[in-house]
């Protein structure tokens, strides 16, 4: 069977599965819509959280990024998993005990301020929309390359599927489809990884194969270091970023991911605080399977790519090369007209540009794996994108129907009315996300990279200090959030938009790039919050009692509205 028939078959089957689950798990109350009734098993919640957390970027782009960055790519690996530790230890159990539906709920109540709640809603909406646009783009890429349909049509198909189960099933539908999507995506990631690891190193476990030897006897990583250096790139295992920048970027990613609203909300779906803790453990296990495989895939694909293309005649490139050229993700420009592909660091001589997104998607073809594996990878990429998109859409809909409509505009709205509003908001959000996916505004890619830093510099201290420091009050938190976000945004805007030419390590403050500046913004935020809080009156007694109560697990009950 051809690649395309296999892809259609596997993608079609996986979509049928998601729709079947959605019909089986329709939501009938707001509680089911927002938090799946609060009765999800921790292991299931762990899988759903893992699928929620691992976006199209984790599945499609991450290994490619590492492949080009080598050691420097570690910032994503440590950043996105280390942030998870912070979430599990410092946030999940306490927010679960707090027992409301959303993060703005916590901010609004902890800082006894409607303004704080609305600021939190706006931030949650901003982060979610930029993120969801990225997911939809991922869906479009997979469709256009593997099923050879137009990117726009691909996005619309993806939208219809998400629309169906997010609008119908709410959190309940999303949770159970995410469980299925996790299984699909991890299977799709591991099968080619195991194949390629075995082909290149004789060891079927990619995590071990990375440290193994290739067929010619030497260690794979040493060989790759050598290949990279021959072509003028930095050695794979050493990278080019300065230590302080690697440090700052890793921290910004860690602190930023810990504050992502669509992941936090998953912990409201389990029955007890104890379950919130253990489901965090399950989730990291499921995430770690992919995250420890990705660097292995990165090194294998990089070696394979260099060996396939470097100094080889263009006319003899395999079939996948021209297919990805058509998708405009590979470009070859024969500068010296010798018909050979020169792939080197020096931009004046280099003739090949490869988009990072194709490294995972093209891996099965580069490694000449069977056709069904290629179809499987397409289904996995879609599962990763759709599961994250659905989680984000739910945050958007609950931010509108619950935080804005119910808590800020019309507190007397009926349960039925709120559920209807939640569905309408979810539907509108799907349409808007689809629109952004078809017509991605130029700034999306730029903004996504900085969303973490901005989240770290604004939300992180407010939530952490809200739990761990009773003395932190409304003026302190507000002052901290404002200084943190203004400082970080100003730095990013200056180097990325106003004075692009100055965006080099010599001009950066302390050598920290705009990608990592959120870490410093976070520190400034925390210091301002602590100082201002101590110069102004302590928070009301009621709030102090609330903090006492979230620190103790007993009496959590299920997540409730009031």
């Amino acid at each position, binding site marked *: 069977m051809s690649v395309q028939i296999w892809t259609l078959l596997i993608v079609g089957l996986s979509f049928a599965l998601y729709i079947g689950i959605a019909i089986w798990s329709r939501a009938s109350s707001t509680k089911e819509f927002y938090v799946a009734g609060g009765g999800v098993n921790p292991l299931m919640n762990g899988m759903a959280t893992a699928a929620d957390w691992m976006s199209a970027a984790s599945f499609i782009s991450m290994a490619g990024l*590492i492949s080009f960055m080598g*050691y420097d*790519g*570690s910032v994503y*690996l*440590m950043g996105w*998993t*280390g942030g*998870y*530790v912070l979430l*599990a*230890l*410092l946030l999940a*159990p306490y927010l679960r005990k707090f027992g409301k539906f959303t993060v703005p709920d916590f901010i609004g109540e902890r800082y006894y301020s409607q303004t704080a709640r609305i600021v939190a809603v706006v931030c949650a909406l901003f982060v979610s929309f930029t993120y969801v646009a990225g997911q939809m783009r991922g869906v479009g890429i997979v469709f256009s390359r593997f099923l050879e349909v137009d990117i726009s049509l691909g996005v619309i198909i993806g939208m219809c599927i998400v629309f169906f189960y997010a609008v119908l099933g709410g959190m309940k539908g999303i949770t159970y489809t995410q469980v299925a999507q996790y299984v699909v995506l991890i299977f799709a990631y591991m099968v080619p990884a195991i194949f390629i690891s075995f082909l290149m190193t004789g060891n079927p476990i990619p*995590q071990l194969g*990375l*440290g*193994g*030897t290739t067929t010619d006897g030497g*260690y*794979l*990583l*040493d060989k790759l270091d050598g290949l990279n250096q021959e072509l003028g790139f930095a050695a794979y*295992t*050493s990278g080019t970023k300065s*230590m302080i920048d*690697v*440090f700052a970027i*890793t*921290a910004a990613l860690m602190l930023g991911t810990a504050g992502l609203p669509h992941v936090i909300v998953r912990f409201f779906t389990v029955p*007890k*605080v*104890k379950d919130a*803790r*253990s489901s*965090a*453990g399950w989730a*990291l*296990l499921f995430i*770690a399977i992919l*995250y*420890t495989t990705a*660097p292995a895939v990165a090194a294998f694909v990089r070696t394979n790519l260099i060996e396939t293309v470097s100094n080889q005649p263009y006319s003899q490139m395999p079939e996948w090369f021209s297919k990805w050229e058509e998708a405009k993700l590979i470009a070859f420009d024969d500068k010296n007209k010798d018909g050979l592909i020169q792939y080197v660091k020096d931009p004046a001589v280099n003739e090949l540009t490869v988009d990072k997104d194709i490294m995972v998607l093209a891996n099965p073809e580069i490694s000449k794996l069977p056709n069904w594996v290629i179809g499987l990878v397409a289904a996995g990429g879609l599962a990763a994108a759709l599961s994250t998109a659905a989680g984000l859409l739910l945050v958007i809909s609950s931010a509108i129907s619950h935080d804005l409509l119910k808590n800020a505009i019309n507190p007397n709205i009926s349960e039925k009315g709120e559920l209807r509003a939640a569905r309408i908001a979810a539907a509108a959000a799907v349409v808007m996300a689809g629109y952004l996916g078809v017509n991605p505004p130029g700034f999306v890619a730029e903004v996504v990279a900085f969303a973490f830093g901005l989240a770290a510099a604004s939300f992180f201290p407010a939530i952490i200090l809200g739990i*761990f420091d009773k003395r932190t009050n409304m003026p302190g938190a507000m002052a901290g959030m404002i200084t943190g976000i203004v400082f970080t945004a100003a730095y990013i805007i200056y180097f990325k938009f106003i004075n692009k030419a100055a965006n080099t390590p010599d001009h950066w403050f302390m050598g920290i790039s705009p990608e990592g500046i959120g870490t410093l913004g976070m520190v400034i935020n925390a210091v301002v919050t602590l100082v201002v809080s101590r110069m102004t009156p302590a928070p009301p007694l009621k709030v102090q009692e609330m903090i*006492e109560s979230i*620190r*103790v*697990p*007993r*009496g*959590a009950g299920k997540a409730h509205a009031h």
Partner: protein
Amino acid sequence: MSGKDLKKYWKENVTYLLILLGVWFLVSYGAGILFVKQLDSIRIGGFKLGFWFAQQGSIYTFLVLIVVYVRLMNKLDKKYDVNE
């Protein structure tokens, strides 16, 4: 539970967090970033040790940390009778 017990419970909880986050810092920022060069001179199979920590070892440690945290906290909850 009395206020005094609550304070003690919270203090032990925070101590656990500090220790666990200390390890968290050591394996990622320590072994994976600050001391990566020094550790890279040690080799285990095909891995330079610092590189291994940055791309593999830190993640395994993170997982162990959460498992240890869940166990410690479940025990602590029982000790202070605040479990569910």
